[in-house]
């Protein structure tokens, strides 16, 4: 294209796909061909064993993403692919964060955790592992506050989302 008048933003997609081998790579190829980086990807079982749900978070231009959605919908194994970035949906993510935490700083850590409704899942002499659930933005904020402790390790599930009310995702 001559120009890309294409605001860059983070997009949350939900795909309902056939539970078949190869479906993940077909989907990943649509993103990689356009040079789109996938930030997070969750593939999971659904209420129907013949299908899987995928939640993908990717950063890129809006127009490019619209094209990607059309190309995803074109795949034979994709039942539907939708962008939920601009809709009010239920969104959750879970993170496990392991920080350096000597006994004298535990109280401080627990105070932050309480504000975020985070739970201790492993406590050792010099470390503390925490589980936190919430929106991706909440997790970002939580991570930021834990940084001064020294984050040894972090793993996040990636965002999962679900439409509200009687609507299906």
């Amino acid at each position, binding site marked *: 294209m001559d120009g890309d008048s294409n605001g860059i933003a983070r997009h949350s997609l939900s795909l309902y796909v056939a539970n078949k081998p190869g479906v993940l790579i077909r989907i990943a190829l649509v993103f990689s061909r356009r040079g789109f980086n996938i930030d997070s990807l969750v593939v999971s079982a659904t209420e129907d064993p013949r299908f899987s749900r995928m939640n993908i978070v990717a950063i890129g231009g809006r127009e490019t993403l619209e094209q990607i959605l*059309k190309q995803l919908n074109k795949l*034979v194994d*994709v039942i539907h692919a939708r962008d939920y970035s601009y809709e009010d949906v239920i969104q959750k993510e879970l993170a496990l964060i392991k920080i350096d935490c000597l006994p004298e700083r535990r109280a401080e850590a627990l105070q932050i955790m309480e504000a975020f409704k985070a739970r201790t899942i492993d406590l050792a002499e010099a470390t503390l592992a925490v589980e936190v659930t919430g929106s991706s933005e909440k997790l970002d904020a939580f991570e930021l506050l834990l940084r001064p402790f020294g984050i040894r390790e972090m793993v996040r599930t990636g965002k999962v989302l679900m439409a509200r009310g009687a609507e299906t995702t």
Partner: protein
Amino acid sequence: MSDKLLTGAEALVEIMIEEGVEYVFGLPGGSAIPIYDALVGRNVKLILTRHEQGAVHMADGFARATGKVGVALVTSGPGATNTVTGLFTALMDSVPLVVVCGQMPSWTLGLDAFQEADVSGITYPCVKHSYLVKDVADIPRVVREAFFLARSGRPGPVLIDMPKDISGATLRDIGHSEFHLPGYSLPREGDQAAVAAVAKAIKAARRPLLLVGHGAAISGASREVRELVEKMRMPAVSTLLGKGVLPESHELSLGMLGMHGTAYANKATVACDLIMSVGSRWDDRIVGSYAEFCKDAVKIHIDIDPAELDKVVKVDIGIIGDAKTVLGQMLPLLERGDTDEWVRQVARWRREYPLAYRKEGKVRAQHVIEELRALAGDAAVFTTDVGQHQMWAAQFVGSEAPRNWISSGGAGTMGFGLPAAIGAQLGRPGERVVAIVGDGGFQMTLSELATMCNLKLPVKIIVINNHYLGMVRQWQSMFYDERYSGVDLEGNPDFVKLAQSYGIKAYRITRPADVRRVLKAALAHDGPCLVDAEVEKHDNVFPMIPAGAPLRDMLLEPPRRKLDKPTGGT
């Protein structure tokens, strides 16, 4: 069916017969032996090719010439990887193919067994859909789905990877299969409100233009296109693959637009106030600069593939649907607007800027092609390779019907012309099939001369021989200070002797005076033949729009000044 068990391979062949397959193109190997075995004595003709790329292009030429699904059957590993170019070619041009690859036994997959390749992984980007069969019981469903997917909607190649233990296992019967394709839907009618809006917009336009693409040919919309053009007095341009949907001799046909299109087609495209594409995807070869293309015109797009809408050209009205169906909905709503002055203007351009070439000196490729078209007649099927000869053929081979012009468009695959002609001739026996090829592309697949010869197919091959990779040479001459790099085809064989060694009748054209006489003799020859036309080495194709430039920057003749390097790709 009796109580006898069938093998997976037999089930595959049984369903091919059920699907109406007449020809299977391919080359066997260890993993495909059970399938080749199942073909013995069955009512499907096996065409043994010399290379798997040739097999897929033959299936492709067969499909384009007939509208049926082309079928190729190859073995695992290199047999399968050799099909990649053919798959890509078919995908880019929406050609219905089913390509079956033998595969090593399923327990060896991923273990680097002999001739074991991740064929699914290698081919994902080159297929409409693909299958790796892991249970013999799935074969009937998979094969039926493959044919359905290949030919329905926007057609394309479908690959079936068939491990040897699966093709060799047995099943009770092929019965009836429930498809499992919940993610695949076919468009029905076009949105009626949008169709009505288009009818209104065309009526209001003073300078409307129809852009006819391959989709119109695939959907069989010739009659509707012609009715539309005549009813609205709306001139039409076509893409390379839309040639012939509207007969090019029609007074309102302006021929091909784009990079090497006719001057009058491009002038009309620049000047129109409405352009409606039916089954084209606004390829960069026809659009030039996306920012400048028909900037002030109303743009309408009819396409069966939703992913094509607003992909590269943003349109005012887009309609998702099959070309024939949507035009059928539109025709009763159309009322003629006032296009008289526009039609007169377009006719003036046609008179003022005809396709032309220099006739003095050595043999001119355009001369050979123009004469060939005249002698071969309106009903002949032409295939081409890719490069200068292809563009000259697009200009000088007026096409009167769809499926009479077979060329690799989107992929631009050199080596396509000869195998495609073989497939076309098998699909259209008794009709005249002519392959116009360049000396470069021809050498990529000329091993298929043996296939052609063995089948005694009366294909006429015309080699436009300029001893160069001419299109690249043209670019280097125009945009790269004549620094020729990698374009001189020194070492070419003597094509006449080469053909003769296969037992193919061969002729040579070296002087302009030979052209008519030799072509006449070649076309009259009852059997395969080849004409080596030794043409002027340094001719370039004009008109030309440098890649990425707006259509108004069209060059009608060799420029006198040095040109900047094009901004668009190749």
